[in-house]
């Protein structure tokens, strides 16, 4: 790769400049400048089809992209995908999964499982785990590679809200203990607010960027999610307006008290959100 002196920043683990991705002739991302430094938690936020996953995949070199991408030499990346398509035809336990593709010792595997709150669950078949358990096992597997950078693509899209909050707490803990930088994708600023140092608002290009508080007040962010000027109330509506069967009390309450996470009455939103996403997908 050609040297790009203006990109040389020793503290940055991963950098991109002028990133452009076209998929099937359509421009999905353009003019994206990105950088993440050691120990930082960065969240990429955007509506469905905004190119969030595409950005992750381009940064990790999974899909071809134009522009400059620079990784710190020898960068160790741990990747946790949105979901694992397990169909049950492949019998595999959590323990065996941790040994892919690099075999790890039993003690190390057990320690990784304990780290994510899954102690003693190694014997469980992957297909028998709940969405939250599976995400934790995938995180454990990523951690076994001693990553300097953890990349999580909508890690909580299959989780209920308490599970979601718990997972982000775990991510923060992991960052605190290992010092790994975290790059993750989310469709919801609220749930990642507490756990993010910096938020990037994406809609095929970077709309706005900054601390969660700054972004949540930014007009670009509000326009992107069609929030108007109603403030925090509207912030919640975009995630709850499609699942109102018998849980209205929960939504109204949450909308009034943004701090109250993981209450009863929210338990089925994550799934519905996931189901809705199937239809729209990424361009």
């Amino acid at each position, binding site marked *: 790769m050609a040297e790009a002196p203006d990109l040389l920043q020793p503290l940055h683990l991963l950098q991109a400049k002028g990133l452009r991705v076209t998929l099937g002739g359509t421009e999905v991302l353009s003019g994206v400048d990105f950088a993440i430094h050691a120990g930082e938690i960065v969240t990429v936020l955007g509506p469905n089809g905004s190119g969030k996953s595409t950005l992750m995949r381009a940064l990790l070199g999974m899909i071809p992209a134009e522009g400059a991408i620079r990784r710190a030499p020898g960068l160790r990346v741990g990747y946790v*995908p949105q979901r*694992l398509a397990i169909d049950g*035809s*492949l019998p*595999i336990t959590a323990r*065996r999964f941790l040994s*892919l*593709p*690099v075999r790890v010792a039993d003690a190390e595997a057990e320690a990784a499982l304990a780290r994510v709150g899954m102690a003693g669950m190694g014997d469980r078949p992957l297909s028998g785990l709940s969405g939250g358990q599976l995400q934790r096992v995938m995180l454990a597997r990523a951690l076994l590679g001693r990553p300097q950078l953890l990349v999580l693509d909508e890690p909580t899209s299959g989780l209920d809200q308490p599970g979601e909050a718990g997972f982000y707490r775990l991510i923060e803990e992991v960052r605190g203990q290992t010092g790994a930088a975290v790059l993750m994708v989310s469709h919801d600023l609220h749930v990642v607010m507490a756990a993010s140092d910096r938020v990037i608002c994406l809609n095929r290009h970077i709309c706005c960027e900054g601390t969660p508080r700054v972004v949540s007040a930014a007009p670009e962010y509000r326009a992107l999610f069609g929030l108007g000027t109603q403030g925090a109330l509207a912030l919640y509506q975009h995630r709850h307006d499609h699942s109102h069967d018998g849980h209205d009390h929960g939504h109204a309450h949450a909308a009034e008290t943004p701090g109250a996470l993981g209450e009863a009455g929210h338990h089925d939103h994550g799934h519905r959100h996931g189901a809705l996403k199937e239809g729209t997908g990424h361009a």
Partner: protein
Amino acid sequence: MPDFLLRAGLAGFGLVLATGPLGSFVLWRRMAYFGDATAHASILGVALALALGLPVGLGTLAVALVMAVTVAGLSARGWAVDTTLGVLAHGALAIGLVAISFVKGVHVSLEAYLFGDILAVTTQDLAAVWGGSLAVLALVAWRWQALVLTTLDPDLARASGLNPDRERLWLTLALAVVIAVAIKLVGALLIAALLIIPAATARALSRSPEQMAALASGIGALAVVAGLTLSLQADTPAGPSIAAMAAALFALAALRRR
């Protein structure tokens, strides 16, 4: 035990060594129709080999490879896989059957290639089967970790620095080799049965990918023994008898599980 039966048994054991692990991947990756189509197309390879005076195994291997790579290439370009497979497989099978009828001066029993003739296996065939099977087994063992991870999730494999397309190519290659050596034993129409049925039987009894692959080979060996016994006792065609016994074992396992 008559020599021909010993050779048949040994050939069968050699084959299931490869079909166990490979059949497991066929199941995990939903390649059943792909394997079937490649096997059907190999009849065209038989015709070409006979016409050109080349060894039949070489013709089937070449056509199976071309078929496998073509399908992989076309589906990567966004062609509907089942349509592509349907057209190529049955087109190649039909053209192969027509072409064989043109081959003059060679007495060809079509049935031998459609259903195989494991009882007519020569020592040379035996060497080819074991050679091909062991090569496939070695390849799969070498790529095992990468193949399992790629099968589970291609993106996880990419993030670990693996290339899922390359891993798929290894499997495609292995499949072509197995089909080429198996056509003489169980025929183009029943190779898929030997790939899929033992692996499907093993699934219910396994907790790990390794266990399933090994068990599939074991169940395949059992089907070979039972099928050859049936063939000997009841004078039934050997290849179909082996496939029928594999299906019977599957039914038995399914019933036991309930």
